[in-house]
């Protein structure tokens, strides 16, 4: 494969350095243009410098990358990149493939460490071991990782400056990735995340203060949410054998065998352990009626229920009864299969969707009436509002809805980056690379 794709480090024309005649660049270290050896030394030195800084000063403080310091750093970075256009040799080295390869290899090593060592929250105290002190449990907030990340931004930025925009595929991928890394890295500390729980039919403007979660403290936000309705749809329930002594599904230590119970399963016999199960009746909306009997109802607060018959294939004994997973104030109703103590029970139905109908009031007077659901956040003011959770015990009967509010001033920059990067990838697929080898 030729080197025609990335002429980032081609010595010809790009290298006015007075290197000694009859000596190829690779033969003499630290003469321009720098290559793999010089890159390796520099990147290793930056890493070791980061580890020493970690040892001396502890983890990198968050405020160093918060507004306005992160913005200043971004401007310095861009100014520096444009300045390198004067010092061409520096620019060519920073944009060179050898430096990129070595940097990526080191970043991949940090990635491997992160993928193998369970990471702690950056705000948590690090363990008092040598690995803990050197930041291996909080890699993303360690000095070494941050220095390398910055060097990646420098090297990638230099590449963008060097590349001709005419080579659109390569240019878009590099510029896109650079924008994403800039927004993700320098924007990390500016991201704000709040958690709010709203009761149905009422207003809320206070978020749970994560820092003082233990004291149950709240803080006021610049917007209020009114929860008008919380609607949850469920999948048809399923049934399984349970051991009442352990409360777990049977057989133990195996993934539960679940039978789907719905209209399609009616009057069919399905095998479950030693039992043949037949669904005689299925009511998606039911309420108990008198002595262990269920009827179809049309009001809110109904539960799923099914009349089933279980035949023990070994003894021939037959059991019949109504099953319901319960919900609201209604307890679950299992079928007791006496002999071995097993019971047949309906599992809690899985949610198909849950939606909160809300009205948002921002402090500036903006009012938004809409709904929030998983995968469909709602924008109001500077916030994106996400459906987070609900009262899992109550399920569809939940009286409150939990929201996550996220503010990320750098988000549009990241999206722009993702867009350009994706276009670059399409080019890579379609053309199989910028030029044929």
């Amino acid at each position: 494969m030729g080197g025609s794709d990335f002429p980032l480090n081609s010595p010809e024309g790009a290298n006015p350095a007075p290197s000694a005649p009859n000596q190829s660049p690779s033969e003499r270290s630290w003469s321009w243009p720098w290559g793999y050896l010089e890159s390796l030394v520099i990147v290793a030195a930056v890493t070791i410098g980061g580890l020493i800084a970690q040892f001396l000063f502890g983890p990198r403080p968050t405020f160093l990358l918060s507004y306005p310091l992160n913005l200043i750093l971004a401007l310095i970075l861009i100014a520096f990149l444009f300045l390198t256009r004067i010092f061409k040799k520096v620019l060519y080295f920073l944009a060179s493939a050898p430096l990129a390869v070595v940097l990526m290899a080191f970043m991949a090593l940090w990635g491997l460490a992160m993928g193998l060592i369970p990471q702690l929250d950056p705000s948590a105290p690090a363990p008092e071991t040598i690995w803990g002190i050197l930041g291996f449990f909080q890699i993303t907030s360690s000095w070494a990782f941050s220095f390398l990340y910055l060097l990646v931004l420098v090297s990638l930025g230099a590449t963008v400056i060097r590349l001709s925009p005419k080579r659109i595929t390569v240019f878009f991928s590099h510029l896109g990735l650079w924008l994403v890394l800039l927004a993700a890295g320098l924007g990390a500390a500016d991201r704000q995340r709040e958690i709010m729980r709203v009761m149905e039919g009422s207003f809320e403007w206070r978020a749970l203060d994560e820092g003082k979660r233990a004291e149950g403290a709240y803080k006021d936000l610049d917007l209020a949410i009114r929860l008008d309705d919380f609607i949850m749809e469920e999948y048809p329930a399923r049934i399984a054998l349970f051991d009442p002594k352990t409360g777990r599904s049977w057989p133990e230590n195996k993934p539960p065998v679940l039978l789907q119970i719905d209209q399609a399963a009616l009057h069919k016999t399905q095998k479950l352990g030693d039992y043949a199960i037949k669904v005689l009746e299925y009511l998606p909306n039911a309420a108990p009626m008198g002595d262990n009997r269920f009827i179809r109802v049309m009001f809110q607060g109904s539960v799923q229920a099914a009349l089933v018959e279980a035949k023990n294939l070994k003894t021939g004994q037959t059991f019949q009864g109504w099953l319901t997973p319960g919900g609201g104030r209604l307890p679950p109703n299992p079928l007791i299969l006496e002999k071995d103590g097993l019971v047949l029970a309906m599992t809690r139905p899985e949610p198909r969707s849950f939606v909160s109908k809300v009205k948002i009031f921002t402090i500036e007077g903006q009012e938004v009436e809409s709904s929030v659901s998983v995968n469909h956040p709602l924008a109001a003011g500077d916030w994106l509002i996400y459906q987070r959770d609900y009262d899992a015990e109550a399920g569809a009967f939940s009286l409150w809805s939990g929201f996550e509010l996220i503010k990320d001033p750098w988000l549009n920059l990241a999206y722009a980056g993702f867009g350009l990067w994706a276009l670059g990838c399409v080019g890579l697929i379609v053309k199989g690379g910028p030029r044929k080898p």
Partner: protein
Amino acid sequence: MTFSYGLGLLSAILWLSGALAVLAKRRSLGVYLTLAGTLVAGFLIAFLWVKLARPPLRSMGETRLWYGFLLALSGLGAYRRWAYGWLLFFVSLVAGVFAVINALRPELQSMALPPALNSVFFIPHVVMYMLSYSLLAAATIAAIYKLRRQGQEGIIALKTLKAPKDEVKEKAAKAKELETFIHHSVRAGLGLLTLGLISGAVWAKLAWGHYWSWDPKETWAFVTVTAYLVHLHLAANRRTPLPTLTLLTLPLGLLFLMITWLGVSYLPTAPASVHVY
């Protein structure tokens, strides 16, 4: 034995016998058998889609089904274009092995799709990844084949000094063709891999609130993409000292890829992941 289980087993048998046929130099029979296995797997995907009333992409077994299908499909496409018998052999073999794994680990196919997966990104995200995995697997097979050939050629090189010129030329042309194949499959594979990652990031922003959280699966995806980027930059740079190293990054990348896809659940970092299923 259910109908879908039978179809899965049938595709396994067809693919494995396809691989055997190629090995026995019955190439056109191998193509037909592999094609038949692929059609059966494609039918199985369609059947499950209708039966479960959702795209069959949720569980590990379901992604393995897509992988086998797309791997065999890209292998057949590559065979049509390049006529590499060894590639067809490995592709049928790997697709067959994955189908056998699925037959050995039958899953209970639940109809339930958690709300987080109910998104326009769900299908493109997984399908682009599976297609990319199959292309990168093909590139790795080619890289290992080339590494072996290079080892042999070192010995042959001395003999070819006396060989007729046409023979040397032909060998050089074949080596060049193999390079082109690796070049194209890596680039298409990496492009799709990155598109899978970008679509996943945008989806994560909509579903979880942030586009990148260093979740273990994301971390391993980062390592994988970075490894392939290293390959791309090594391959594109004419001052690369070791061409063998460039080729070796491909099996390494595939190892990371397999950890990302199948291995993360077994790592000490797994409990923190929202991607374990």
